C-alpha cells in the first residue's frame, strides 16, 4: 500500500460517497425551499426573493382548507401519538422487565407486524374492515389506523432506553416497600421519560407523515395535510404548496432536533 501504517477507519472514496449521499438527500429539499421564496407565478423562472407564497398560504383562498387540514393532522397525530406511546410503554415494560416467558417472541412479532406489512396492504385491509363492520369513515377510523401503525415506532426507542436502565433502581425501591406502581411512577418512569418522549415524537411524526393509509380510511370532506398536498400537487406543483412543504419540513427538522437532544441525554445517562 506504500504507506507504512494505514488508518483502518479510512477507505478511499468513502468520504466522497458520504458527501454524495447527503447531497442526494438534501438537494431536492433545498431546491423546493429555495423556490418557495420565488416571486414569480412561473415555477421555473426565478423572479426574485419574496414571501408572497407564505402570505398566500395563510390568507389566500385556499388558506381555510389548509388550516382545516393542519388542525386535523395535528389532532390526529397527537391522539394517535399519545395512545400508541401509552400502549408501547406498557408493552415495552412487559417485554423488557417481565422476565422470560412463553409467547415473548410471538409478542415481539405481533408488535412488529405494522412495520412489516406494506402500507398499501394495511390500507386495503383497514378500509375493507371498517366498511364491513359498518364503521363510518372519519376521524375515528383514521385515529384507530394511526394508533396501530404507530405502536412499533413508539415501542423501539422506549424498549431501547429501558434496556439501558439497570433494574437495580426499581428493585431498591421495592426493597424499601414501594409498591410496583409507586416504583414505576417515582423511580422507573422519570428515568425512562426521555425514551417515552422519543417514542412519542417518532410516533407523532410518523402519523403526521402518513399518506397512503389515511387516503384509504378518511371519510367524506376530511383532509389531512398530506392528502391535501397530494390532491393539490396532482394539478401542478404550485409555489404555495412549496411554501407549505417548506413549513412542514422545518417542523420536521424541529422535531428531529428535539428527539436528537433527547437521544443525547439518553446516551449520557446510560454511560453513568
Amino acid at each position, binding site marked *: 500500500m506504500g504507506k507504512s501504517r494505514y488508518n483502518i477507519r479510512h477507505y478511499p472514496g468513502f468520504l466522497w460517497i458520504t458527501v454524495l449521499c447527503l447531497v442526494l438527500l438534501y438537494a431536492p429539499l433545498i431546491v423546493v425551499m429555495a423556490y418557495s421564496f420565488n416571486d414569480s407565478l412561473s415555477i421555473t423562472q426565478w423572479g426574485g426573493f419574496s414571501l408572497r407564497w407564505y402570505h398566500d398560504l395563510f390568507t389566500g383562498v385556499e388558506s381555510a382548507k389548509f388550516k382545516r387540514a393542519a388542525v386535523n393532522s395535528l389532532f390526529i397525530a397527537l391522539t394517535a401519538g399519545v395512545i400508541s406511546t401509552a400502549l408501547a410503554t406498557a408493552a415495552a415494560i412487559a417485554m423488557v422487565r417481565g422476565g422470560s416467558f412463553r409467547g415473548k417472541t410471538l409478542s415481539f412479532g405481533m408488535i412488529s407486524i405494522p412495520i412489516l406489512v406494506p402500507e398499501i396492504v394495511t390500507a386495503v385491509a383497514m378500509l375493507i374492515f371498517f366498511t364491513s363492520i359498518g364503521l363510518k369513515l372519519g376521524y375515528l377510523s383514521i385515529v384507530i389506523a394511526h394508533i396501530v401503525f404507530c405502536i412499533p415506532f413508539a415501542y423501539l426507542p422506549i424498549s431501547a432506553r429501558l434496556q439501558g436502565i439497570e433494574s437495580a433502581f426499581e428493585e431498591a425501591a421495592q426493597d424499601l416497600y414501594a409498591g410496583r406502581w409507586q416504583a414505576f411512577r417515582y423511580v422507573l418512569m422519570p428515568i425512562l421519560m426521555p425514551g417515552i418522549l422519543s417514542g412519542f415524537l417518532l410516533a407523532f411524526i410518523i402519523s403526521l407523515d402518513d399518506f397512503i393509509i389515511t387516503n384509504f380510511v378518511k371519510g367524506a370532506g376530511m383532509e389531512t395535510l398530506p392528502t391535501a398536498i397530494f390532491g393539490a*400537487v396532482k394539478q401542478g406543483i404550485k409555489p404555495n404548496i412549496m411554501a407549505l412543504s417548506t413549513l412542514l419540513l422545518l417542523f420536521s427538522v424541529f422535531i428531529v432536533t428535539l428527539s436528537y437532544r433527547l437521544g443525547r441525554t439518553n446516551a449520557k445517562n446510560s454511560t453513568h
Partner: protein
Amino acid sequence: MAAIGSGKTVSSTYAPVRGWLLLPTWLTIGIFMLMPLGVMLVYSFLTKEFRGGVLWEFSFAAYDQFIFDRGLFGDEAPSIEWTYITIFFRSLVHALIATFFCLLIGFPTAYYIATRPTGSRYLWVYLITIPYWVNLLIRTVSMKFLIRDNGPINQALLNMGVIDAPIHLINTNVAVQLGLFYSYLPFMVLPIYAAVERYNISLSEAGADLYAGRWTILRTILLPVVKPGIIAGCILVFVPSLGAFLAPDLLGGAKTFMIGSLIEEQFKGTASNWPFGAAASMILLSIILAVLMLYARSQARGQV
C-alpha cells in the same frame, strides 16, 4: 452503551403483571391489524358487482383474473395472464435496483459515519436522520420538481451548455427507481451504521497488523460481522419499495403500474374491483412474508 450489558440479564420486576401490560397492545393489533387482514382474505374470495360494489358470493374470480387470460370476451381457452405477473415482476426489479443502489451508497456512508470520533459522529447521524423524518410525499414531490424536463437540473445544465436537449427522466422507469432509492436511502444507512458502530474496530486493526489489505479486511472481517445490519437495511428498503405507491404515481406518470398503484387503482380508481384488490394485496403480503421467513431462517442459522 456499556450499561446495556447489565440490562441484558433478564429482569423480571414486572413479571406478575406482564400479561396485563401486554394486553392492550395485543388487543389493538389483534383487532385492528390481524382481523382486517383476515377480512381482506375473505374479500379476495368474493364476487365483484357490476359497476362497483361486492356481492357476498364465494368465488375464485379474483385469483383467476390474476393468473388466467380468457380473452377479451371470456370465451377463449385460458392461457397464462401476463399482465399482473409483469406488474409484480417489474415491481420486484424496481425494488431490487433501488435496494442495490441504496446499499452501494449507504454502506460506505454508514461506515464512514460510524468510524468518526463521537462528537462529529452524532452530527453526521443527525444530518442523515433529518430527511428520514421529512414527509415522504414532500420528498417525492421535490424529486419530481427537480428532475422534470423544465426543472432546475435540466435548466441549469442547458444554461451551462452541458446538454442541448433536456434529459428526459420524468414518467420513466428510471424516475421511479430514482424515487424509490431516494425515498428509502436513510433506511439503509441507519441499521448499517448501528451495526458498524457496535463493531470492534480493533478486529480490523489486528487484520492490518497481519498485513491484510484494506479491502481484504473489509470483505473477510468487517462484512461478516455487520451482515445482520446490512440485511436489515436491505429489508427496510426492499419491503416498502415493493409496495410503493407515491413514486410510481408521481414520478412514473401512473402509466407503468407497480403493485402499489395496481392495488390502489382497484379501490380509488376506475377499476373498482375490491375482491381483485384484496387478492393482489394477499399475493403481495405472501411475497413479503416469504422474504421475511428467509431472513428469519438466515438469522437463526447465523446464531448457531
